[in-house]
């Protein structure tokens, strides 16, 4: 049974997330955990906006917070977000990875360790190769990997690299990603 959905994106991420998160139904049984690169900026207002237009509760992930299904968590700006083996969040101020903090690779790798085959990983529009290594870890440990079709991504590099390196099971245009996720979740019943 899938327990978590992890999503990584940078440039073009606001638009891409707006096309996915609000379409997830109120009884969506997975925790959704997102890394969005936004440089030195805060993302409070985007989180509030997304919360207003979504059926799921959207918030920033907190240190030691317990991870709940049906909730969307964002990595706080300037911290890496990790999944602990007691299903809580950990934060770190370690060096940037792929010029990014939070880095998608850090979330994906630690999520793959904890959730194994119960995980769906998604790489969306973005400008560097962060996420490719992490998505490969998800694939290696039995999770399902989805990459946004680079053809219609605002920034192609991130999904292209993830496609090349992680060999995802699905490559999907942005407007069909939410449906694909829901289909995967429903098909296991």
């Amino acid at each position, binding site marked *: 049974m899938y327990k978590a959905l992890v999503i990584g994106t940078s440039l073009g991420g606001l638009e891409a997330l707006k096309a996915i998160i609000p379409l997830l139904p109120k009884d969506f049984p997975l925790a959704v955990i997102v890394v969005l690169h936004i440089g030195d900026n805060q993302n409070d207002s985007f989180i509030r906006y997304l919360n207003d237009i979504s059926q799921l509760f959207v918030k920033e992930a907190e*240190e030691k917070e317990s991870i709940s299904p049906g909730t969307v968590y964002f990595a706080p700006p300037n911290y890496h977000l*990790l999944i602990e083996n007691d299903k809580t969040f950990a*934060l770190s101020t370690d060096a940037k990875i792929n010029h990014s903090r939070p880095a998608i690779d850090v979330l994906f790798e630690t999520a793959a360790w904890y959730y194994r085959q119960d995980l769906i990983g998604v790489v969306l529009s973005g400008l560097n190769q962060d996420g490719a290594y992490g998505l490969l870890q998800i694939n*290696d*440990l039995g999770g399902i990997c989805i990459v946004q079709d680079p053809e219609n991504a605002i920034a192609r590099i991130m999904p292209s690299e993830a496609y090349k390196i992680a060999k995802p099971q699905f490559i999907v245009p942005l407007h069909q990603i939410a449906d694909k996720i829901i289909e995967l979740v429903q098909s296991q019943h």
Partner: protein
Amino acid sequence: MTSNQDKQEKFDNIDIEIPLILEAIYQKYGYDFRRYSRSHIKRRLVHRLAISNLESISQMQDKVLRSKDFFIELLEDLSINVTEMFRDPEFYASFREHVIPNLKTYPFIKIWHAGCSTGEEVYSFAILLREEGILDRCQIYATDFNRKVLEVAKQGIYSIRDIELFERNYTKSGGKSKLSDFYTMKYGSIKLDQSLVKKVVFADHNLVTDSVFAEVNLIICRNVLIYFNRDLQNKVINLFHESLSSSGHLCLGSKESLKFTANENCFSNVDDKQKIYKKSLSKSCIKL
């Protein structure tokens, strides 16, 4: 077996091996990482394993028990050494507004900067205290368990690479002059004015295994507790409570919190958002 099963078994084994190597390190060298955030430790060890010629964490354990040099390398992997000048400038602005007026009422001020790493924030505080006219009245203890980073902190020499970020942070923090008034530039590096740390004692202290060493008016410990599990966080907060003079201040990192810790009630909020706390009067802490 498929290769996926191999990989899954490898990680099953790693989860068994990590507590064992941490126990070995503690028994042999006295450094205690057993109650650190496990995912942080696991990332560091797994990445060290990937670039080594070792086959497993068990082999790494064998090597660390027999080679002090290898232990020192691992210690670098396991410690947290990334910081910046005036990190979270909004915090510094709040500190200026809420804590400085109280500090100014003391003729002598003792400050403990715990987990100071390479010292960027020690210099940041020294600059702020000088601008407020009280640096000469302060005795600052800047501590870390890693002697190598303390050497860097003493030198106060940092790469020029991050200078724009430092300048930006300083301005946002409410800095009163120009950051460049406090450093000289040479060979791609900046060197902070050493008169800033005339009254700073840089010392080796381990929050996990060492105890109270002084009574202080202010404790700064930013982005250290996030690496500890809840149990260890409680222990260290208790240590801070014991070390603070009555109504002394405690400053944590912006994403750290006393919320849900055992001794939450022994402190009151000064600035909830910037994680500035004050030791409460007449409330005693639970001994852990």
